[in-house]
């Protein structure tokens, strides 16, 4: 009788463990699905923003914008061009040269607090569509 109950207990524990495992798997499935969708969204946003930067850098678009505002550009004269060693550093190099440090605890707390208010108000990246 003792063995029977012990066996029943073990079987019950194993069955509960199996059920719990399935529940975990399903919960993790939702999580994986949502993270995968978030990753895809972020990749899409990255591509859109990259495209917008390209559009902003395009000489054609720049020309059109300047023409709309009636701004005329002329190429610099030879004397006005700085040799590369004297020229400004690209922004990336300046930023990487700056000391990188973690934001202080109160800044992090403030950021987390404001995130609560910002919930659902994330900026959405849209591909730029120039009106020509």
């Amino acid at each position: 009788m003792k063995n029977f109950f012990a066996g029943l207990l073990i079987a019950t524990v194993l069955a509960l463990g199996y059920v719990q495992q399935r529940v975990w798997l399903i919960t993790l499935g939702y999580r994986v699905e949502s993270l995968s969708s978030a990753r895809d969204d972020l990749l899409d946003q990255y591509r859109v923003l990259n495209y917008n930067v390209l559009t902003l850098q395009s000489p054609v678009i720049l020309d059109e914008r300047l023409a709309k505002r009636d701004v005329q550009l002329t190429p610099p004269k030879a004397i006005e061009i700085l040799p590369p060693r004297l020229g400004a550093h690209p922004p990336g190099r300046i930023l990487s040269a700056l000391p990188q440090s973690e934001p202080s605890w109160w800044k992090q707390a403030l950021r987390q607090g404001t995130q609560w208010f910002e919930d659902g108000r994330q900026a959405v990246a849209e591909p730029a569509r120039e009106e020509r």
Partner: protein
Amino acid sequence: MLTAAQRTRLALAIMVFLMIAAALWGRLLWLQVLRPDHWVDIARRQHVQVLELPPLRGSILDRNRKPLALSLRLTSVFADPRHIKDAGSLARRLSPLLNRPEAKLLAELSRKKRGFVWLARKVPNQAAGRIRSMRLPGVHLVMETQRFYPHGYLASQVIGFAGMDSQGLEGLEMTCDRALKGEPGWRWLSRDARRRGIGAWETATVPPRDGLEVVLTLDTTIQYIAERALEEGYEKCRAKAACIVVSDPSTGEILALANRPSYDPNRFSRVTPDQRRNRAVTDTFEPGSVFKVVTAAVALGTGAVKPGDTFDCENGSYAVAGRILHDHQPHGVLAFRDVIAQSSNIGVAKVAMKVGADPLYRGIRAFGFGEPTGVDLPGEVGGTLRPPSQWSKPTITTIPMGHEVAVNALQLTQMISVVANGGFLVRPWIVREIRDPATGALVKSFRPKRVRRVITPETAAELQRILARAVEIGTGKQAQVAGFQAAGKTGTAQKLEPNGQYSHSQFMASFVGFIPAGRPVLSIVVIMDEPKFPYYGGVVAAPVFKRVAADTLAYLGYQSET
């Protein structure tokens, strides 16, 4: 102790329970052991679906890997009208988000017999996000890719465009479609009762293979310089059409190729076929005096003429083969080099007669005329060049000055590159390499192709001097570039009327040249179709060459020669 009646009732109850248990066990056996597949199939159909994973179409990049065409994923909205209860209210809510009239949406949503209707394709991400958060029953979102061209009209006829379903329809988008489109993947996705994805890590997944990147020989900056100069020239002379080709004469790489009229491939549905045509490849025309370069090359190459030989240009009027030839201005006796520099028709006709029909024809063929160049752009036509057996009596005097022969702008680029690179015919090409965007690995690369030697280096050097003279003191003065010696030849050809007569109001103005004259790095061909007066190649096409040459050399970092 049970009575007999009680025992009977108990036995009946046990029998009933046993029968129920047997029925249940039997059903269980039937469901789980004897016919499990049927029910598993039904459950799978309800909960699991195959999800196609569309690939992202590959980008088209310039030689510095700047994107000229790329794909982004946007959301499209569709509905299943059978699951929509209040179509009117739904149409009212969706109309401002999808920017579509309410009545049209209502009409779509009311088609109860259909299980699928598009409500809007490729909507802004913000609108898609709002629709997603509304959780509207019967309304679904799906990701689709859309092609974008960040530089608008830049090289639009070269790149072409891809349609709504990411299918290449024109230009390189069409010819490189196999490499660009990629392969879709698929995965099993389990869905719960609310149709949320649960994840399907236990089942097979085939990831999509994104399209490959196509890297071109074009340089966005040089392309822009060429487009800007061409636009200015085209507007100024009010031409019907225009095109320009900038290439590296030693390798045949096309650095820029532009056409006018042009269009923005981001709005390809609104343009006419006329705007979409890559005229540099698809249009042939009688080249006029720029063709004298070939005549001069053949004359020098065959030894029929020496640079110092003189020709009587008959003071501008010469009766030959039943026709009277004219020069645009009268000349007396000119040295051979000045016959070319001053673009004398009479002088060139006499040179050609000295060369003879067969050697002239063979020489022209050697320059690649009469057959396509083999450029990797769609729709190239080879032009027309008849063999001497089909020539009429005056043909020996008209072909040398670019009549009775039809060429395209790329063939002229190939021709001038022969002179610039020391005598080799090089195939023009535009696709440099194909790469895998995921790994950056090179899938295929293309190399310059020297087709054959056409003229000797000495002949090429002599021609370079003659063409530099044409710019210095001849008809191409407006092609002079400050700080560099340019070389080239102008052309102004009368166009043929439909009745076969040469027009006196419609012309093809052109300039073919290279720079710097001594060690050429750029070959440039400018064609203006039907410019208004003054319609001369030296007036409408040469200034475009000048501007493109000056700006491109500055961009490439070449220091002034003087």
